[in-house]
């Protein structure tokens, strides 16, 4: 299979996330998660069903992306199985029919807790206020497995988030989520950063580096985090975008590079 030798970090992240996907339900937010499911539908999981918080179940989105954060318009609602509303989609997640949640996030910690509320200071006097939960808390609380996507930067990968907006494994103790009252057997599953693919250790619930993204090294991954993750015994380097992945992303899905333009360009 042929691969491209020049690509942006976000292109590779979208490909890594898309290759994880299967024919089931994904409750997703805007941006990179949208691109990943669109690519996966074309290449890896044709019967993947997207679910959006504003009531759209299983659309066949009319491409391409035309502007930033394109959500809820006719192209994105296109040929869905159902049009409902925001309460219903959260109920669907709470009742257990939505397998994966997928979120773009600002900050994450070693136990997969996510912060999109504020950075620095305290809640009353934040250094930088962010958007807050939106629907992310419900997605991370209710979906069976949650995948998060974020740029790999020191300030984003911290031992403990400033505010738990959306729950990961909380303090990491074995039954922390269940004791808090969250649905049993749910939690973080994968974290895709611009440098690595992470999972979580079954027992300690600590984040574990599973693979490197192309063009980076283990040292570079660790230098750009504020905590030390577990590292898999055999650390593979994931392939760059295939020619077919790159073609679909660049020509059909996001030709204006609204999402794909983000991050550094990598030349192998």
């Amino acid at each position, binding site marked *: 299979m042929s691969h491209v030798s020049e690509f942006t970090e976000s292109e590779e992240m979208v490909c890594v996330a898309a290759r994880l996907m299967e024919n089931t339900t994904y409750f997703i937010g805007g941006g990179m998660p949208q691109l990943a499911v669109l690519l996966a539908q074309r290449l890896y999981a044709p019967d993947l069903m997207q679910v959006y918080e504003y*009531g759209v179940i299983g659309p066949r989105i009319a491409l391409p992306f035309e502007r930033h954060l394109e959500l809820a318009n*006719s192209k994105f609602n296109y040929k869905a199985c159902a049009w409902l509303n925001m309460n219903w989609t959260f109920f669907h997640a709470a009742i257990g029919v939505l397998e994966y949640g997928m979120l773009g996030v600002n900050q994450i910690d070693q136990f997969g807790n996510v912060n999109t509320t504020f950075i620095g200071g305290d809640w009353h006097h934040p250094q930088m206020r962010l*958007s807050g939960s*939106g629907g992310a808390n*419900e997605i991370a609380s209710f979906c069976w497995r949650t995948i998060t996507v974020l740029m790999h930067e020191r300030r984003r990968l911290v031992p403990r988030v400033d*505010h738990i907006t959306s729950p990961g494994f909380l303090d990491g103790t074995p039954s922390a989520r269940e004791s808090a*009252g969250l649905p049993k057997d749910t939690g973080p599953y994968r974290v895709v950063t611009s440098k690595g693919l992470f999972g979580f250790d079954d027992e300690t619930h600590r984040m574990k580096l599973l693979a490197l993204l192309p063009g980076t090294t283990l040292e570079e991954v660790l230098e750009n985090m504020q905590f030390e993750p577990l590292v898999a015994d055999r650390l593979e380097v994931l392939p760059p975008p295939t020619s077919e992945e790159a073609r679909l992303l660049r020509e059909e899905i996001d030709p204006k590079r609204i999402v794909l333009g983000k991050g550094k360009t990598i030349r192998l």
Partner: protein
Amino acid sequence: MAILERGSGEFRMPDVDAHRAWMREHKLREPCNKLMSARDAVSRFVVDGDYLSYDHCFPVRGPNTLAREIMRQRKKDLWLAAKFTYVMSTLLTAAGCVRGIDVGYLGLGRVLYRAVEEGRIKITEWTNGMLTLRHLAGAMGVPFLPTRGSLGSDNVKYSGAMIVEDPYTGQPITLVPAVNPDVAIVHVNQADVFGNCRIFGPSTLPQETAMAARKVIVCAEEIIDNGEIRRDPAKTTIPYYYVDAVVDAPYGAYPGDCPGLYRGDAEHMRELFAGINDEEQLAQYLERWVYRYESDEQMLHEGVGVQKLLDMGRAEKIREGYYR
């Protein structure tokens, strides 16, 4: 029932019987013509200090004509329910209309975020799911509803929710208080003069928002005959008695999309987003698109122009699921 955690955020205590009594006294049970201008509707039904809930978002089927009229009339001290707010809370804040926001998703841009950081705008922390559930409770006439959301997170601390021990299972569960907004603004595809409304497409929560609110203003792309409503009653999702004012507002979601009818004005959106982080630019935006016109009708005719409105209609290629 043991209370395990109680949030410290500002919220209005639910009073179900007071709300019922208000509905009994004020909601017209007999059908009557509620058609009026946006100016009359906003001056009659939006009062300084009101809790305002709006449905859907500025870029898609937002009640933008009504929001602009609220800004034009310089309403003050509103508390917003931002369940899918996007940029409407940013604009209302920049226009000086806002005292506080119930955060589901806090708008967009540094102007709004700075107002929060500096304490000029008060917020209470919720999530989209908590806010939509609060509206459902308000629409059901109950004081609260339970959810398994926000457990284990830090959101409850700064909200008006509490975590209790569920009396059935003994497990922790979150309770969110009902919200009965003073006023709701909702953009709909079609309405008759009595206020029977049709909304085409997916949505945030128009039905529950209208049901929970004391006063409801709808702006409609099209006013249709009551006979047409009765010909296809399954399409009505908000029945007339919830609605206090019906505003005839073609292109009322401008500059956003009204799915199935027109695409948004991309050029206008670029201008808005380019200035979203800068107070001066936002002030200029409001001057240019809101204050200098006496009404949205004038803004659409003189500021946008018929040609562009027609082009927006032509740009919407998808009608499937909306109008057929």
